[in-house]
């Protein structure tokens, strides 16, 4: 499914809710809109790749369980920009902030 609004797309399969919440907070603090799309079981690399390619802003986040990664359009499948497994809450916040910063074109935070 694609949305028409310019947002960062989050494709999530059974996400850890706390992780999802922190990632969203990261984007909100940076002031970039996002939409969450819940997906039935999907391969992690596909989640990331499709989220970035479907997003008008060209940035997407894939979440499956406790794994989360930031993907940008033009990057090949499986080559996520930042990828984390079981991140701490502040790492999750940074991942979200970096998705927004990729759109704003300002330097990333250290994950």
């Amino acid at each position, binding site marked *: 499914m694609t949305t028409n609004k310019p947002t960062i797309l989050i494709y999530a399969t059974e996400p850890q809710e706390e992780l999802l919440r922190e990632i969203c907070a990261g984007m*909100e*603090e*940076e002031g970039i809109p996002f939409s969450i799309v819940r997906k039935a079981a999907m391969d992690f690399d596909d989640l990331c790749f499709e989220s970035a390619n479907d997003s008008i802003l060209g940035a997407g986040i894939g979440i499956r369980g406790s794994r989360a990664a930031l993907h940008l359009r033009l*990057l090949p499948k499986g080559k996520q920009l930042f990828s984390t497994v079981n991140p701490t809450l502040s790492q999750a916040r940074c991942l979200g902030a970096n998705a927004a910063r990729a759109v704003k074109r300002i*330097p990333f935070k250290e994950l």
Partner: protein
Amino acid sequence: MKLIAGVDIGNSTTEVCIGSFDDDGKVTFLASASKLTTGTKGTLANVPGIKAALEEAMGRLQKPVSSLSLIRINEATPVIGDTAMETITETIITESSMIGHNPSTPAGTGQAVGTILHIARLDQGREELPYILIADSSYSYEKVAELANQYSKRLNLTGIILQADEAVLVWNRLERKIPIVDEVKNISQIPEGKLAAVEVALPGQTVRMLSNPYGIATLLKLNADETKQVTPIAKSLIGKRSAVVIKTPHGNVKENILPAGEIYLEAGKTYVVNIDAGADKIMETLEEAGEVEDIRGQDNTNIGNMLSGIKAGMGEVSGETGGNIRITDILAVDTLAPVPIAGSLAGEACLEKAVGIAAMVKTQQLPMEKIALELKRQLNINVKVAGVEAVMASLGAITTPGTRLPLAILDLGGGSTDAAVIDEDGRVAVTHQAGAGELVTMLIQTELGLTSRLEAEQIKKYPLAKIESLYHMRLESGAIHFFEEAVDPKYFGSVVLLAPGEMIKLTQDIPLEKIAAVRSEAKKKVFLRNAVRALKKVAPENNLRNIPNIVLVGGSAEDFEVPEMLMEEFISFKIVCGRGNIRGTQGPRNAVATGLVLSYIGG
């Protein structure tokens, strides 16, 4: 046929030029080489570097070094440059009464005034007073928003100061929108119960009320005396996106003039000038003094220690004692240095006035003879110390196509800017001026507040670019360059330096335009001023118009923008000025080595 080598030992590189003389005394240039100088210029440690350069040059001719019949090395000018920086003002803010910084995402816009109230003591707030809420990072954004919403029904909350980077998150959850400043690290130092003003600028703008003394006076209801006191605060908040000013009745802010010391110029009589007077005054006095014998600083002051330190350093190199080492020239440059403010709450710095100084020391002579003897012993070839450096450089410079006599050379080095004029009769006038590449590096380091000297050096040398996406960058000139492969994400959105073969990421987040402006301003302050000063000294009748050509030689002549700056300056005097091209092939390097070969006549 004889093979002659010219060897020029410079501060950074050792240059070699090989020429062959036939029986009629006609010279043909065969090869050249350049190696990093080993050790300090003018010491025995130079010998390995000289040998390496000779081997490289002779290797190109496929001949052994032993087939040389003579090696001529330069009589290095016994001058050494050094630089130092003195801050002459200092802002002292006691009882931490201001915050001014650029958090990446403050929230809300506008100004607010109120008494500072900690979030834990909201229940003690009184209904009739306006309050500014402070919250440390132990409170989540949800909790801050919830409490603010709950209490704003009863209390008049006008602004919020946060420790965490959560201004937007809180603001989005507020029912009544108020300005929020975040990322204030030392929030525990903010005094509670004091009156404070908060301002967040409109998008794309900077604070307007708090960077204006009358703005602060309006918000905090100050009288004329108090307004005068807060002027340094207003000054240091210029250009910030968000700011907080706290009224502390016993707090104090003042701009001190530091006692930086006096400089004594010995030129027949003693001229005295205070560092506080600034660069222009110092240079004026220096010009007035004329031929200077020695320059000293007032004892036990910053400038005094700095100047005697330079002399001591030079004494070690030359092995001479104090009396023979004299500072004969200085170049002073006004600059601004960001100095961290003592007791700041968010790591703020204030721009302070400073003077950068390059000094030049003249000694009797560098021990070049010792180097010559050692080289002779190791290679078993005749070695001769021949010719004054500047004369040799002039001789080499004439081989640049399109030049004629009289000719001026400007040798833009690291420590000193040297000029020489050679006229139709072969007479040469020479001068050495303090201040060159190293002073430029120091100015860049100071004005940008960099911690590393190497980084400043790199900024001086390489053009800038901004990485705008993983696949392209925008160059300083505005042009766009695309990458084949995605770049490392660490470069994303950053300003980088385009060094040969690699990109260097800058450690601090400074806009590209500002770096470029500081860099070219520093080069102009040092090289333009010194070029004019040096050429005036050697020009016939001290008039620049009597020089038809200027050839730029030396390391800094290879800079990507300095030659153009000088060209623009001298075009108004109808002077042909440009980067040298020694023997039509060597660029601005190898002038002295070439001159050493050329000056060999017969036996």
